[in-house]
């Protein structure tokens, strides 16, 4: 099931919220959430729910063993078995086709390519459970003894299928006991409305521009290639951060405090900062669990960096362009590391902004084109070696036809809401006024978004495919 459809917003969610409100006590509320999370997942994946439940059982069991054999060999064995199982499942269901295709291409073999449909959300819940197992192994968290509570952690539907990757440590206490304030619920509802608005009103409309210009890259002008890549970058940002807003908002309504997943990434001044602001839960996952894997010996600083960016690329999809995309960012982070933070800061801010935006826009071009031939055409066109010149009438028409949409999208990349809120919070009157305005804005946004959804068929979030 996806969030951006009327069925979810006006049938599944209200029924779920009503049941949750009627449930008394944390135990009953947890039960409601587990049942609705399983329904949510099974709605689109009736068969793969067994895969998820098996993953839950294996990791829950491993967690118990890790706790039981603390400081003994069994601890490591359980960790290795659980992590291997998780990676194996991810490998089989997400990468087997890609691997076989490449083996066939490399060795001219004809191994049948497995046609396995990607289970929704597998990349997200696998990483969640890996973080749980490793944190248990490192004794950062105590293994959860209740299977129900563990299942709740893994299957909680707000973040189940497209993140953020929630650590067990983040919600450990709230699984056992949580207090829900009125302000939590209103904040959560407003955040859900904001996320839906980002997805439906911005991302979906920007996708039309992106597909028009990047989808027809061989007929695009140089301007068209950049314009399409910018529209695509904005689309992905509003799509994915919109989903995270909904997840965080729903979490808050249910009494959970998930960490932020995006922090206005486009205001970054360099690529390192970009990745501190973009898909934060993934970056921190790799930082905490992959960067310092001691497999590169003395060169582990750079080896780890390479591994992180390779993994970042592969995680996003079983395709070469994603691997290139990951390594592409890795190169810039590496260069910035070589330059050093102090020297980077000495470079004029304007130049750093221009540099980082150019890298990011080209990065989205790489992200878009799964066919390498088309990616080559994109590069040629973007750097002035295309066949269609710099600017054409269709570019001008598109910009004018979408000028307000583009303006609003760019403004929304800045932390406007955050700044207004911070300023308003200093005085009671302004705080009350802004809170009231936010309530009205959220209600309007929800209504307009719903109206827009009437005219569209279900529009899955892009990150579903990862």
């Amino acid at each position, binding site marked *: *099931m996806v969030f951006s*459809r*009327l*069925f*979810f*917003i*006006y*049938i599944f969610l*209200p029924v779920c*919220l009503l049941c949750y409100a009627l449930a008394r006590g944390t135990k009953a509320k947890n039960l409601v959430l587990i049942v609705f999370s399983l329904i949510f997942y*099974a*709605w*689109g994946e*009736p*068969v793969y729910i067994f895969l998820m439940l098996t993953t839950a059982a294996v990791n829950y069991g491993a967690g118990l063993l890790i706790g039981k054999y603390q400081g003994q060999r069994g601890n490591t064995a359980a960790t290795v078995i659980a992590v291997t199982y998780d990676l194996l499942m991810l490998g089989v269901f997400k990468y087997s086709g890609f691997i076989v295709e490449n083996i066939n291409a490399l060795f001219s073999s004809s191994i049948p390519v497995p046609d396995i449909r990607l289970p929704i959300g597998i990349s997200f819940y696998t990483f969640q459970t890996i973080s749980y197992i490793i944190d248990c192994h490192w004794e950062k968290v105590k293994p959860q003894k209740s299977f129900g509570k563990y299942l709740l952690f893994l299957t909680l539907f707000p973040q189940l299928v497209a993140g953020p990757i929630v650590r067990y440590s983040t919600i450990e206490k709230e699984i056992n006991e949580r207090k829900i304030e*009125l*302000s939590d619920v*209103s904040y959560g*509802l*407003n955040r859900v409305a904001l996320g839906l608005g980002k997805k439906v009103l911005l991302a979906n409309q920007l996708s*039309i521009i992106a597909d*028009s210009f990047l*989808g*027809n890259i*061989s*007929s*695009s002008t140089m301007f*068209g290639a950049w314009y399409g890549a910018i529209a695509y970058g904005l689309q992905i940002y509003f799509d994915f951060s919109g989903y995270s807003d909904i997840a965080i908002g729903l979490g808050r309504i249910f009494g959970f405090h998930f960490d932020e997943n995006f922090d206005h990434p486009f205001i970054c001044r360099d690529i390192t900062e970009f990745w501190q602001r973009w898909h934060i839960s993934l970056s921190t996952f790799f930082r905490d669990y992959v960067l310092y894997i001691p497999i590169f010996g003395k060169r582990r600083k750079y080896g780890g960096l390479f591994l992180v960016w390779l993994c970042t690329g592969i995680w996003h999809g079983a395709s070469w362009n994603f691997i290139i995309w990951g390594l592409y960012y890795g190169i810039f982070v590496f260069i910035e590391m070589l330059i050093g933070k102090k020297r980077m800061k000495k470079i004029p801010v304007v130049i750093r902004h221009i540099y980082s935006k150019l890298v990011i826009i080209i990065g989205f071009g790489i992200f878009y084109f799964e066919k390498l031939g088309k990616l080559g055409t994109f590069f040629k066109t973007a750097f002035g070696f295309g066949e*269609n010149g710099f600017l*054409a*009438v*269709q570019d*001008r*028409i598109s*910009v*004018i*036809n*979408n*000028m*307000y*949409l583009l303006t609003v999208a760019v403004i929304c990349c800045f932390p406007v809401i955050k700044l207004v809120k911070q300023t308003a919070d200093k005085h*009671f009157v302004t*705080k*009350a006024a802004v*809170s*009231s305005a*936010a*309530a*009205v804005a*959220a209600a309007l946004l*929800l*209504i*307009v978004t*719903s*109206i*827009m959804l*009437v*005219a569209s*068929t*279900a529009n899955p979030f892009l990150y579903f495919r990862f």
Partner: protein
Amino acid sequence: MTDNKNKNSLPEPSISIEASDRAGASIDVSIKPKKLKKQQRKKALNFISLANIVAISAIFAGGFVYVTLLPHETKADDENRYLTKFPEFSAKSYASGEFTEGVADYFDDTVHDRAHIKEFISDYIMQLKGRKYGADGEEAELFGSGFEKKAAVITTAPVTTAASVSTSVTTAVPEATTAPAEEAPADGELTNNILIVNKRGVTLYSGAWGAEQEYASYVSLYKEKLPDVNVYSMVLPTSSSFYLPEKYQNLAYSEKEDFDRLDAALHNVIPIDAYSILDAHKDEAIYSRTDHHWQPLGAYYAAQQFALTAGVPYPELSEYETVTLPGYVGTLYMYTQSATLMNNPEDFVYYKPKTPVTVTQYNTRFENPVAANLLLDPSYMANSGYYMVFGADERIVHVNTECKNGRTLVIFKDSYGNALLPMLTGSFENIYLCDIRYFDLNAVDFINRVGATDLLFAMCSFSAVGGNRNCIYNNLTK
């Protein structure tokens, strides 16, 4: 009452501050305990939060009632399709996820008063995206990015068939297809870029780029295999050739230039110049403004040109009964959801032959004959149009006429060709109408089997030089 209240209430604590520079001047400042103030503020903020929750909850509740309890729509007149039906449950459909997705699709697709909500979106919300480009009554909206050039001419024989388009969300109306997507060519060749200008949607022609040579070679193959049959090729221009204002003409390639190259490449196939006659009548309503098809009047002129070349009689337009369907909004609105098109419907005018004909409809294997009407009754859809009058493409139609000249015509066509059929009922004794995309026989065997004297390829430029051209070749290999 007020006095009593004042009497009973305790005076607010206050301190008197005397101004040091002015004797006797002092102000009273009331003191509220800090805690009380904090509590009151928290109360006020809680009230706002509560109001917020009530407002959003009311929207959820209202939405729930609207989506679930209000009558569900069953058809969309503006899209010429029936809306999604509630799925039937089976273990298989549940296991595959079809059932659950179908349930969600049903609620999403059948919202009460859907048409008016869509109109509201077109009229108000979509207008917020930006401005129309240009001025002077030629303001334009572009859907898509322009055109796609082919990198190289393909010379090898194609083996693919045109992809049929289906959607799990929509249910096609019987005898009608849901969208012109059937015309969509193979990936990466032609694109459906639409410019809306002067209240007209124009599908921009993106050039043949050598594909016209392929088309010509395939059609010529038919003549080679059928030396005794008159083979004609009539590639039909689209509105892209006639209705683009000058300043937008570089958005589309020239169909005429491609047609000239195509005709020159034909071997022993007789080219029919529909372009010139349509150009001569372009000020009449020969193309739909809101649909990617032509209007039946355009088909009348093109068929006239064909009849002239084929040396067969051709009735005057006055010999037909004229039927006008007002309020027609066609497929281009479905593509673009443009308020300009929605708010400027057109008349769909078609012509019924007065002479009786016998029509038999077969499946695409030329089996299961059933009696049919030459033109369908469009009355059961309010905004009926092209498909509702001329019917679906996935069939073979045989028309036996009162024109006893011994001539049997086979037409291989796309949806443009459907409109030719009624116009030729006074010209040939037998007509077989076959769609190049939905034909499951060997074309030569079929033509021999029905004893054709004439074979006409009639399709629009997008089909002739797009992916559909491969079907022409593939139909020889079945």
